[in-house]
């Protein structure tokens, strides 16, 4: 499996560290909603197909990435910096940095 890092180009999967499912949204840190926190920590969509997930290019530029990969075929549809996605999410929700 090759992952095309937006900074370094195509690299072998062994340079990367998988950091799990990127479909979850962490509740507001101030939230005391127990059910929401439990769901965030333990529940997964476990998609069969295109799966949004975090990887770090730990053996390269060390960037955190969001990869969309098929869990059925290992085909990779997109790779981008996680910080861009985070900025986008903050802009959408109108929050400050």
């Amino acid at each position: 499996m090759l992952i095309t890092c937006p900074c370094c180009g195509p690299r072998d999967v062994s340079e990367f560290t998988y950091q799990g499912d990127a479909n979850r949204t962490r509740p507001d840190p101030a939230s005391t909603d127990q059910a929401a926190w439990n769901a965030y920590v333990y529940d997964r969509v476990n998609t069969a197909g295109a799966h949004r997930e975090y990887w770090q290019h730990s053996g390269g530029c060390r960037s955190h990435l969001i990869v969309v990969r098929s869990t059925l075929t290992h085909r990779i549809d997109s790779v981008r910096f996680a910080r861009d996605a985070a900025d986008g999410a903050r802009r959408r929700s109108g929050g400050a940095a």
Partner: protein
Amino acid sequence: MREYSALALLKNAFSGNRDWKPAWRKPDPKPHYDVVIVGGGGHGLATAYYLASEHGITNVAVMEKGWLGGGNVGRNTTIVRSNYLLPANTGFYEHSMKLWENLSHELNYNVMFSQRGILNLAHTPGQADDYIRRGNAMRHEGIDAVWMNPAEIARKVPGLDVSAKARFPIVGGLMQPRAGTARHDAVAWGYARAADRRGVDMLENCEVTGFLRDGDRITGVMTTRGEIRARKVAVAVAGSTGRVMKLAGIDRLPIESHVLQAFVSESLKPAIDTVVTFGGGHLYVSQSDKGGLVFGGDIDGYNSYAQRGNLPVVEEVMSEMAALFPGWAGVRLLRSWGGIMDMSMDGSPIITAGPLPGLYLNTGWCYGGFKATPASGSCFAHTIARDAPHPLNAAFTLERFHRGAVIDEKGQGATPRLH
């Protein structure tokens, strides 16, 4: 019931083996069953058997999308052990071990259970303390465990590098002498045949494609062989849990699907007579009765339904094997394959009523569900028949994750790829 015996073998030998009966019937589906079990793997088949033999519930069908035993039950490295630390796990897996010890006799089917022992190697004083603690916890529960020093290990496992020059020197090892291996296909076939003889219908090539429901209640299944109603529907589909439960409208569970690869080498003369695990990395190896080395290591580490792995893990497992047994570095690999596992968020199984009325769920076996097959079947059958868990699976609920009562054997937290 005792169809297989020395006398039967002899008689059939003289009649050209023409009179053996098929191991199970091939019935057409009935429109209604008391219990429908989705998944004809080891756990589904064992559940059917114990429903019939322990609870007298025989109007049961096992539905399998492929052929019986074509899933993980026929795809694993066959290790059976009960060397756990936490009380919920030790009780459950030791119950399984006791069932294994009588299984060939009970099923009248030789599952080739071989108590060749399992040796977990420790490579640091900290790891040794950890294993000794585990051994003590096991002995507290009446489970066998023996601490071995390097000299004893060298005598037991020739070929192992126990020298101080080893990449990860061996400081000792925890041995469970009653652990071992079993013939995985035979376990599926033995349970299938014994359940069939008690009236359970084995429906092969019968894929469950949806659920029938009345409001929230599950009242049957839609299958490639038609709609079938049932008072109770029990799901035991291992690595397909996420997909099958989505058909019931359950779209989030404390489960992730991951691939685990396994390997078999060319046949060698007898080389090891026990199962050895490498604590310096992650490797488990035994030798099959045909002479092949059967071994595996870590999961690939990212979600997968692909049923095939990638090469970095192959390389990693091979290098660990060569580090531990330098003499095997030139042995040729015969084949490798992958299986999809239902990794739970704390590494322990889920055997529970729910999550919907009329539905029962058996999942979360991670790396180690083969050894659990008998206990899983007996506890799941109890849960289904009585609508209450057996004391041995009372802790293995789905909602333990939401009560914070996780059973985290390895202390790794909610990280399924590390369990």
